[in-house]
């Protein structure tokens, strides 16, 4: 390799290393700020500043959904397995919203309750055909295995 190319190779490699280090440090520094959501256990540990608007994520607890008869108001409990939080929301819920579904809600704390202004359903990375899902549900019933995910033990 001739000296000019060698010099270019060294200079460009050094710049690349510097950029990678800078990016890695930025990512590490932003780790806290990029946190998209908090889970109930983090909220109860006081990791969220009071009166702050934040996203609360977790699973909708089985049997906790209560719909008001005369309005779009819905109440449910979000759990991360370790802690639970009551959530109140007025509005239209996404298709995937149901019991034992991961959701991300945006809002703020009102006393011990979380008042949400937006509810998003999180889809997991599993794709299952309908027949397989039915077969699995049958097997679960037969062997009396709880359908809930390991996170909600």
């Amino acid at each position, binding site marked *: 390799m001739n000296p000019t*190319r060698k010099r270019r190779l060294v200079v460009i490699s050094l710049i690349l290393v510097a950029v990678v280090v800078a990016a890695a440090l930025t990512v590490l520094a932003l780790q806290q700020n990029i946190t998209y*959501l908090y889970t109930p256990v983090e909220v109860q540990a006081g990791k969220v500043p009071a009166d702050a608007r934040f996203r609360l994520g977790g699973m909708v607890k089985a049997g906790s959904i209560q719909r008001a008869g005369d309005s779009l108001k819905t109440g449910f409990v979000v759990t991360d397995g370790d802690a639970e939080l009551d959530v109140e929301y007025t509005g239209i819920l996404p298709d995937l919203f149901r019991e034992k579904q991961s959701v991300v809600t945006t809002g703020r704390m009102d006393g011990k309750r979380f008042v949400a202004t937006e509810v998003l359903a999180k889809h997991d990375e599993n794709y299952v055909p309908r027949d397989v899902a039915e077969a699995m549900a049958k097997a679960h019933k037969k062997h009396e295995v709880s359908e809930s995910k390991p996170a909600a033990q």
Partner: protein
Amino acid sequence: MNPLVLWFHKLGSPPYFYRLAGRLLPWLWGLGLISLAVGLYGGLVLAPSDYQQSDAFRIIYVHVPSAWMSLFIYAFMAVNGFIALIWRIKLSETLAMASAPIGAAFTFICLATGSIWGKPMWGTWWTWDARLTSELVLLFLYFGVMGLYQAIEDRRQASRAAAFLALVGIVNLPIVHFSVNWWNTLHQGSTVRLFGPSLIDSRMLWPLLVMAVATKFLFAASLLSRARVDLLELEAGKDWARQVALADGDAA
């Protein structure tokens, strides 16, 4: 000289590459279109519907291959940019610059299909989580490379400046890929895994893999078509380019 090295040197010569690409192109387009047809038929018709999302999950057959291509093409562009910066090989400059608009198109398709899927499933068109934001940054990086290339008069200087931007932007690739593991995101984690079992039924998986192959062929075909024109333009004054132009003129 070692035959492999010799072949590599020959490949770098614009007239040789022009002829080779011309011979490969019909095959690449043919294989690309056939595998695209097979993948789309498999994905949209043969694959069973998802138990939760029913038929709406089928957007995965466009969204996920496009997302893979957006990262793959960026890496390809950066590697060519690296070679162009150090060895000043004309072909690498041309390939790097020709791949940028194709990568931008795949990134746009990925963002658009994701948004269309997100509205009914998540309940929102867009959210500023780490995966979505870093993919948007990737689109802007492609735009930056294309814009910088067009902003400088001298073609070769322009491609080297843009190649440098492409190279620096490569730090975004691991951020896009690992964002779903590093942070709590609304976007789900990887379904198809290189190591370990994929989290998708095999009847749903195969069309996805066919689509991944199809997009590779289509990228190669599109890239070679673009690079041929760019090389001809770059070498307009050279003998070989004149001969190609005259031969085309006679044929027409």
